């Protein structure tokens, strides 16, 4: 049975099915079918990633595409990310302060530990999860719509590889802008955390702004996560968009899958990068 792959033509929704004699699959066959689908999906995703890297170096430059995507992914996410990370910063510091009060009623290291947590993990991971919902969904919906309206087929008829034309500009822009946005969002979360610590626990800003626990390892791990998440969001969501089939319902599914799969990818990447970080920078 043929299956379509990303960048290939979509499943035709307008074709009258001609059923053959076909018994419904049993549970083992269904499980096996799902496992094969998962394997094929992973293989195609890897293929999309490798082709994205290839075209990032050797692809055809589309005038203005990169800067447009920088604006779409970066500038348009600033407000959303600032608000969410600002509130998350307040919640984190408030809850941490309450816990600290029960165990060691001393807030002198509250700012330092919070900053380490932000730099090493939370700013990048929570920020990227937020971006996955806004940017990932947008990419999947846009590319998915292009698939169902045959625009992707039209690209291929003009010798334009959809990966090169659609995913590469988003990939480059996302790697840069995700890093910039996360640094910004982390700063916002830190500042709102400082304000919360001052109001709720009377921790002076001079005490809260403490960088004693930050070292090269924290910054390296944090940056590695920014780059990995920035790369993962457009590749995973672009893949979901390209594998859209059907009509508007298919675009809806592609968008949902993009958010779910990108979030999963971020969490799995977080685990592996954190583990590598603790092995490389054990201190």
């Amino acid at each position, binding site marked *: 049975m*043929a299956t379509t792959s990303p960048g290939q033509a979509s499943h035709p929704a307008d074709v009258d099915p001609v059923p053959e004699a076909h018994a419904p699959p049993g549970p083992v066959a269904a499980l096996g079918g799902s496992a094969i689908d998962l394997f094929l999906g992973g293989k195609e995703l890897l293929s999309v990633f490798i082709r994205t890297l290839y075209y990032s170096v050797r692809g055809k430059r589309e005038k203005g595409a990169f800067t447009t995507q920088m604006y779409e992914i970066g500038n348009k996410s600033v407000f959303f990310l600032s608000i969410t990370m600002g509130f998350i910063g307040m919640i984190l510091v408030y809850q941490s302060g309450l816990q600290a009060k029960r165990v060691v009623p001393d807030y002198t290291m509250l700012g330092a530990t919070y900053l380490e947590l932000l730099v090493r993990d939370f700013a990048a991971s929570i920020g990227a999860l937020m971006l996955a919902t806004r940017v990932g969904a947008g990419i999947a919906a846009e590319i998915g719509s292009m698939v169902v309206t045959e625009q992707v087929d*039209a690209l291929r008829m*003009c010798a334009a590889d959809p990966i090169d034309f659609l995913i590469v500009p988003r990939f480059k822009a996302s790697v840069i802008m995700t890093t910039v946005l996360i640094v910004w969002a982390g700063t916002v979360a830190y500042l709102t955390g400082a304000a919360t610590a001052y109001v709720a626990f009377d921790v002076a800003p001079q005490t809260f702004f403490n960088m004693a626990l930050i070292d090269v390892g924290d910054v390296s791990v944090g940056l590695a996560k920014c780059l990995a998440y920035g790369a993962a969001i457009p590749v995973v969501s672009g893949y979901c968009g390209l594998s859209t089939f059907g009509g508007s319902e298919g675009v809806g599914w592609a968008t949902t899958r993009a958010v779910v799969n990108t979030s999963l990818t971020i969490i799995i990447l977080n685990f592996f990068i954190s583990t590598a970080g603790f092995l490389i920078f054990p201190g």
Partner: protein
Amino acid sequence: MTSPPVIRVAGVSKAFRAAGGGPPARVLKDVNLSVPKGCLYGLIGPGASGKSILLKMLTGLMKPDVGSIEIEGADVTRMGELDLQKLRLKFGMLFQNNALFDHLTVGANIAFPLQRLFSLPKDEVERRVAERLACVALSGFEGRLPGGLSGGQKKRVGVARATITNAPIVLYDEPAAGLDPVTSQKIFELLRKEQRAIDATCIMVSSDLDRLLTVTDRVGMMYRGELIFDGSTHEAQTSTEPRVRQFVHGLTEGPL
């Protein structure tokens, strides 16, 4: 002596896996078709009979499960993506939904194949875009976005884009859908004139049979994934095959 076919489809079948693990949907069944050079071939049939799928297979946008598709002797089904990109230089294609790029202007849409496939100077590209737009009665529309056009105008932009490279093989999927009768007739005549001018080989899918059959050399009819008729336009018009007769003459009584 007849020239070898430019397009040869042999024993092509295709099925799609149904959503939810149901029975597979067979969309093409053992289709055999030959189109000689310079022929304008009309592909007709009720909706969902596999016409658009077949057009996409000719360009390698879809692969059949079995069978072979040869374009000027080269088997499309065995080609990799790079070979397919070279093959597509020979094609112009109008998609059923026009497939205009939403983010590009009308001018940029029409120029897109020229810019991607050929390295032409900017002024030459602009000249050819203006000439194409004049042919489809849309002069001055270069700067408009597709979102601001009517369905008929979009179709005409699609026609302009499909024909701008003067490709030797052109596939039209519903070139007259959404057009008024006068514009529709003009488009068919324009396409016929251009096809003759460069001796292009064309396959045209259209539901507007009254006009389509005035320009075609040969006609094929598809029904439920099968090519049930293949003959000259005159043979199609005089066919006694009940399904062909009913469809060509638009009869309400019959097997369809």
